[in-house]
């Protein structure tokens, strides 16, 4: 069966004044229809860059490797060059929800006008139809007084409401794939719970594929079917959500779980992962995690082991250096 989205061997590099930075290296992912793929990792691990590559939204100094493929609906997005082709993807087949909804709405244009504008670009409909679709969508995401909100500006809405409006806007073009980049991070827990439930309902209703980016493993546990754990531009472990959270193999995944304060186990000490995430300018050779790994094996320490995912159980892939380290401790 072919996947809805398939990313194969993707490298993303940025040319900067200080040199060429590897933001993402050799990533392969897939998302099926109606499935949520969660991507977790610390800031700087390349989660957002990966998502933006799918819409080719990375800035002009970006270069992709030639053998990389991002296949959506049997088309390789990386080979799109004309604006016309990209337009079909951006906001059409693929929509994105951002972390900070205040920053993603234009402040001086009414919410409704922004929703109608993108519908007119992507769908062959007139203004009145676009308006009624937008208002229905606002109602669907649980905004009371949708007609009134339609004529308001982003600053007049509260944080949770803005995020709902953002979701309504992203969904109104009926995308096949939704990229949600930390959509609940800026929200309070009670609002976060509302938004998570909303996203889950909508995925079920519209059967779209979703890539859900977050640094919060709790949120991942609640929404995702599959998880990819990223560190410094590489996927170090991926698999079904249950496997990854209950039976983690890579020392980085284990570290993330141990650093998380658990409200049901207050006696457990909080154990941070030692050290800091290295600068992408001096990315370690070999295993990227080796500079912070608490129990590295001798070969991994010197960077002699290449990064390579190995299937340890059906569907559960772990970096080969991490498997050995994981056995050590």
């Amino acid at each position: 069966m072919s996947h809805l989205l398939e990313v194969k061997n993707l490298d993303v590099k940025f040319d900067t004044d200080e040199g060429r930075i590897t933001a993402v290296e050799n990533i392969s992912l897939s998302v099926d229809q109606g499935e949520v793929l969660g991507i977790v990792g610390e800031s700087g691990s390349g989660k957002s860059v990966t998502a933006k590559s799918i819409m080719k939204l990375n800035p002009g100094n970006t270069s992709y490797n030639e053998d990389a493929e991002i296949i959506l609906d049997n088309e390789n997005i990386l080979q799109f060059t004309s604006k016309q082709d990209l337009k079909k993807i951006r906001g059409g087949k693929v929509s994105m929800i951002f972390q900070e909804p205040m920053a993603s709405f234009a402040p001086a244009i009414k919410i409704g006008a922004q929703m109608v504008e993108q519908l007119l670009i992507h769908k062959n409909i007139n203004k009145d139809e676009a308006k009624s679709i937008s208002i229905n969508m606002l109602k669907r995401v649980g905004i009371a007084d949708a007609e009134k909100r339609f004529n308001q500006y982003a600053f007049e809405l509260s944080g949770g409401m803005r995020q709902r409006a953002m979701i309504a806007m992203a969904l109104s073009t009926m995308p096949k794939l939704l990229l949600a980049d930390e959509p609940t991070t800026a929200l309070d827990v009670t609002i976060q719970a509302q938004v998570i439930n909303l996203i889950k309902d909508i995925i079920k209703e519209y059967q779209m594929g979703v890539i859900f980016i977050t640094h919060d493993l709790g949120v991942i546990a609640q929404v995702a079917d599959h998880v990819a754990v990223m560190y410094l531009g590489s996927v170090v472990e991926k698999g079904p959500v249950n496997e990854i959270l209950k039976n983690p193999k890579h020392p980085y995944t284990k570290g993330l779980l141990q650093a998380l304060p658990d409200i049901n186990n207050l006696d457990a000490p909080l154990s941070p992962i030692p050290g800091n995430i290295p600068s992408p300018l001096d990315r370690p050779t070999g295993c990227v995690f080796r500079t912070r790994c608490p129990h590295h094996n001798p070969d991994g320490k010197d960077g002699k082991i290449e990064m390579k995912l190995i299937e340890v159980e059906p569907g559960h892939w772990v970096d080969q250096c991490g498997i050995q380290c994981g056995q050590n401790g």
Partner: protein
Amino acid sequence: MGDNLISVNNVSVNFDYQENFISKKQKIHAVNNINIKIKKGSFFGLVGESGSGKTTLGRAILGANKISSGNVIFHDDKRDYDLTNMNKQDLKEYRKKAQLIFQDPYAALSPRMTVRDIIAEPLEVMKITNSRQETDERVRDIAAKCRLNIEHLRRFPHAFSGGQRQRISIARALVSNPKFIVADESVAALDVSIQADILNLLKQLQSELNLTYLFISHDLSVVAHVCDVVAVMYLGHIVEMGPSRELFKNPKHSYTKALLSSIPSIDPEKRSEAIELKGEIPSALNPPTGCVFRTRCPKPGIDCKGGEITMGLAEVEPGHWVDQCCVL
């Protein structure tokens, strides 16, 4: 007063609000009639959603917000400071003893100053040290305590990661040798792996330097881990307060229960047990009468629905206080 460091007595903070110059002047009730006692050497947690008045209360205790009514007393070894009635000299003294750590380590540090200058600034402004040598000594001393290297002191903030920057902010807050620290969402902007590190550092410094913390956070699992006593705020009122273990094991107020159930569980098999609260926190411009939580309460009683029950804490177990509306 013995073992209390801070007593907050019936404190309210109101802000004036005028929508435009012809409309009527209104009052925003940011903090209402708060009573708390913070024990010496304790880690006092303040939780609630945005808009609940946590930060305003924290700032009022530091003397950075005007207190509209009530008073805040800081019990020092030799004397008490009454924050509502303080002259300039006293305020200067108090500033040395009570300090603030901010949320965003990227915004809190000046990009044009070296780390050494950032940490030394309070000493110079407050004229605590007399010579450059003495200043340097204290800066190095506190930097070492906050696990910063000596070589870091010559660099500028842009060279540091979020966790390191937060350690610099902590060092700056601690350099004047304060007794009381308000940490306002100090770990909210950090990655989990670094968050754990900063929390451990705060704990360690507490015992080394005899500090008392007011820890403001929206993250209940963090608060549950580090705090001894927790107060839950909603729309300017404390709705529940008690020893943190007791409060998290046995929450009484329906708001606390809803907050606790909203924390996403790390177990993928336990999905969606959240008591979903409808809507959002109402505006502090015209809060509901009576119990402020009644507009979102999942199980409002017959009496409180109409707003007949006034806000007020009742002690349900020794040290565990709950708003009376939810006790009845």
